[in-house]
């Protein structure tokens, strides 16, 4: 199971952050060639990200590059350079329709062929940042077999919706739900928007708990300080792990006795409960918890 709990934004023209991006152990690092780079530095940022990706070893951390849109003068050159720099994922901003993804995919494929690389190696992610994109989320998610996830970009979205962000996030609930539902239906990851008020730790934790409860796979983060709190909230608790182990144990027992209806502590255990338990254990393992040891303890 690939974890994408945290995707750390790294401005593409910041040499210091580029150098240190991997030491904070986010699940992914995202080098940004778009909004965090001023128009007169697009070329230098491209050179910097290109050289970093072709030289530095990010120690197995997933590398993502947010390119400029194809409606800008920079998007095509970004693709030419980044296909050769070979990040794991290219992220397209402000995706409105499935065609936006298909257009990017076509250019990537062209460059992959020109370089003699295996076609399809570079994966794609779409950031959905407007009302049309939200309504097209499912088609966007299915637009290419390279798609690994869709992400909400809330700042542009709320502006288009003629509102602003609130601590409760009620104004983006529809967009979050649409994106999440589309991602689940398409079988790809759903990544939540950034939390910009970096000094409001309590507000940040509330938001992470909310998106975890909704079912998101992770969140874009804008400072290394936001990484560990997200990982902590996404890590299953001991109680959840214990319950998951018990569920799998009673299922195993029931299978050996060929019994039909199964219950645990007076509650029926059916397929969704088993799937949830398996996911809890998978997430715990991926988070670095030694489940085999816990299983041994449990079986003793």
């Amino acid at each position, binding site marked *: 199971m690939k974890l994408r709990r945290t995707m750390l934004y790294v401005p593409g023209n*910041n*040499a*210091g952050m580029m*150098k240190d991006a991997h030491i904070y152990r986010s699940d992914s690092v995202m080098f940004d060639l778009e909004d965090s780079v001023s128009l007169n530095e697009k*070329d*230098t940022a491209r050179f*910097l990200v*290109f050289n970093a990706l072709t030289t530095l070893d990010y120690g197995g951390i997933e590398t993502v590059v947010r390119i400029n849109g194809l409606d800008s003068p920079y998007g095509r050159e970004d693709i*030419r350079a980044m296909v050769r720099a070979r990040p794991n994922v290219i992220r397209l901003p402000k995706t409105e329709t499935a065609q936006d993804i298909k257009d990017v995919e076509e250019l990537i494929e062209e460059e992959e062929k020109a*370089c003699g690389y295996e076609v399809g190696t570079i994966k794609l992610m779409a950031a959905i940042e407007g009302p049309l994109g939200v309504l097209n989320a499912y088609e966007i998610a299915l637009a290419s077999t390279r798609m690994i996830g869709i992400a909400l970009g809330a700042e542009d979205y709320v502006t288009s919706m003629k509102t602003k962000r609130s601590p409760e996030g009620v104004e983006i609930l529809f967009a979050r739900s649409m994106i999440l539902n589309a991602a689940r239906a398409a079988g790809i990851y759903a990544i939540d928007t950034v939390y910009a008020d970096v000094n409001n730790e309590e507000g940040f934790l509330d938001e992470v708990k909310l998106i975890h409860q909704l079912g998101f796979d992770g969140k874009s983060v804008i400072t290394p300080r936001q990484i560990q709190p997200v990982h902590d909230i996404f890590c299953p608790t001991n109680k959840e792990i214990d319950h998951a182990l018990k569920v799998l144990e009673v299922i195993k027992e029931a299978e050996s006795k060929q019994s039909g209806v199964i219950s645990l502590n007076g509650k029926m255990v059916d397929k969704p409960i088993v799937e949830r338990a398996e996911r809890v254990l998978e997430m715990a393992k991926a988070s670095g918890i030694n489940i085999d040891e816990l299983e041994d303890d449990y079986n003793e």
Partner: protein
Amino acid sequence: MKIVKTGMAGSLESSDVLITVDSNPGKGRNVNLNSIVKRQYGKQILKVVDETLEQLSVKDAKIRLEDKGALDCTIRARLEAAVYRAAGSESYPWENLT
């Protein structure tokens, strides 16, 4: 590549380098390095500059570096950007830079 104007790239922030490339017709390469780590890494920095200029086929240029502890890949990136700016070129042969 032929340098036709002044090109600059980079910054004076920590881990970065500010590079200025100027024309120097018929006089070869003239590299001026100012670095906080010149004593430790000066030779290595100049080697990276030389290799990069060679790769970009820059014969005549004045290069000034204000280094704040940049990695080799950052020096290369900033120098490439400054040279392309100084050559007035926006056609980047990424395949040769890989």
